[in-house]
Structures are given as C-alpha cells and as structure tokens.
C-alpha cells in the first residue's frame, strides 16, 4: 500500500528555541576596528542540535561577521554563549542578528520545522 503521509512538523511538547537578548548591546572588542555582540542561545528542541548564526541589514542582506563557529552545536536543553564580531564599518548597516535551526542532510526524520529568532541592534 502506498503511503503518502507527509509530516510537516516533528515535535513533542516543549521543543523550543530561544535567542536572547532581544536588543543586544554592542561593545568594543579587543581588536581595533571590531565590535562585539554577545548572544545566548538556548536549545530545548530535542530534534535539533545545530544552529546557524547570521547578521543582516534591515532589508535582510547579509552583513559580514565572525564568530568562533558559524554553525553551533547546542545539546538538548543546553545554553551556548556566542560572541559575534562585526567590523565597525559594517556596524551601521547591521540590524538583525539571527539564529536558525539546522537539520542534518539525510537525517531520517519524517518532518522538519525550521525555527528562526532574530534580535535587533538598536
């Protein structure tokens, strides 16, 4: 018998994703001409272990930045602090800092939900 079930979401109670603070502050880094923003990611999705970080303009164009790793491995119920480095020349156009869940290619899961949370630089 043909099976045509498509699960749009894979979920269980209390599978969430948080990215704080909402309005992060920008501090000078130890490098000249570079500013630093510190964010915290909390993973309460047991189906997701990887998150990607992005910095965007108000029109969702990518802004160059540096982190220790652009793809973060965060274990279930784990918290990860991320330092994001942005050139001072790019800072005026940087508006959103986002974290987005990533699923593994070829992962044998029948459903996927992509969650993305964006904080705003003010």
């Amino acid at each position: 018998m043909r099976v045509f079930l498509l699960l749009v979401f894979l979920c269980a109670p209390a599978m969430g994703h948080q990215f704080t603070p909402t309005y992060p502050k920008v501090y000078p880094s130890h490098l000249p001409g570079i500013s630093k923003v510190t964010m915290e990611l909390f993973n309460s999705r047991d189906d997701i272990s990887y998150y990607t970080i992005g910095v965007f303009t108000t029109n969702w164009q990518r802004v160059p930045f540096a982190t220790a790793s652009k793809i973060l491995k965060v274990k279930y119920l784990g918290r990860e602090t991320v330092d994001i480095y942005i050139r001072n020349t790019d800072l005026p156009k940087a508006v959103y800092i986002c974290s987005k869940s990533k699923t593994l290619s070829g992962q044998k899961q029948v459903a996927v939900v992509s969650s993305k949370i964006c904080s705003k630089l003010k």
Partner: protein
Amino acid sequence: MFKQTSLVAAILLSVTQGARALDAPIMGSVQSKCSITTDTPGIYGNPTPSVLSTAAVDGGIEPVVRFDVISADYYKAVITHPQDFSSSPTLTDTVVWNGAVSVSEVSDPLMSGYDAAKRVYNNVTEFDLTVAGTTWFSITSDASYGFDKSWPAGSYNAVVSAECIAL
C-alpha cells in the same frame, strides 16, 4: 567556668554562621524574550491520488506552532508555509501549493484581533505580537500534483518556517 561559656558561645556562633550559609538567594530578571515551540505535528493526508493536504477532512493534521513572548510589542511572528519539498521522490510534473496560517488558540483574549491584523504576502503570514503571552498558530497546507496525476510512492518532507523577529 569562663572557658566553658566561651566554648558554648563559639559553638553557637559557628552553628548560626552555618545556618546563614544555607541561605540560597534566587535571583532573576525579566527581559523581553521570544520562544518558538512546535506544538502539534502536522501530517499530510492523501484524500485523492493527486492531493496531499493537512486538512482534517482530508485525513491530515494541521501543524500547530506556539509562540511565547514575555513582553508585548517586542516581536512579530513570521510563518511561512511550504512551497516545495525538502525531500521527495523524483517529481516530473508541477506541484501547485496552497496554504494559510491562522491563530488557533490564545492565552489572552486581547490576542483575538491577531487574525484580523495579520499581513499575508506570497506564502508568508506576519503577526505583530502586541500582547504578552502565548499564541498558537495553525498552518494549513496542501499540494496538488500535475493535472490529477498520482503522487509517486515514497516519503515526502517539507519545511514550515517559524520566525520571531524583534521589532
């Protein structure tokens, strides 16, 4: 006598200090925050050979995603229903997608106006989260294959994107 009194006093003092050391302060702060939680798994039913649908009448289950915001007016919810499969058998014909997003449950009656105020463009629906609390959004999605063509057998995966954007 004096020695004994001093000893008792010293013991009492140390016990009191020990009790003081047991004080465990709990600190916390409230800050604006958004949490996205997948609440109900969505399932596409296959009512006819050429249709996949999450509608209950089609044998499917509408997915529900939950947004929690601690403070009002800090975030908007942006939900995108699928317009392609993330994985599927090889498809040789066009797929026509339809979908919608609506508020299915709220923790505060003031959120009842979210549906009327939502903005829809392409396959994206935006809601301003103007009330603190929890909102559940349900997503309907259906896909039709070719001109009444049967879907090839196999496993189909699609992605619904749930975003919480700071305002």
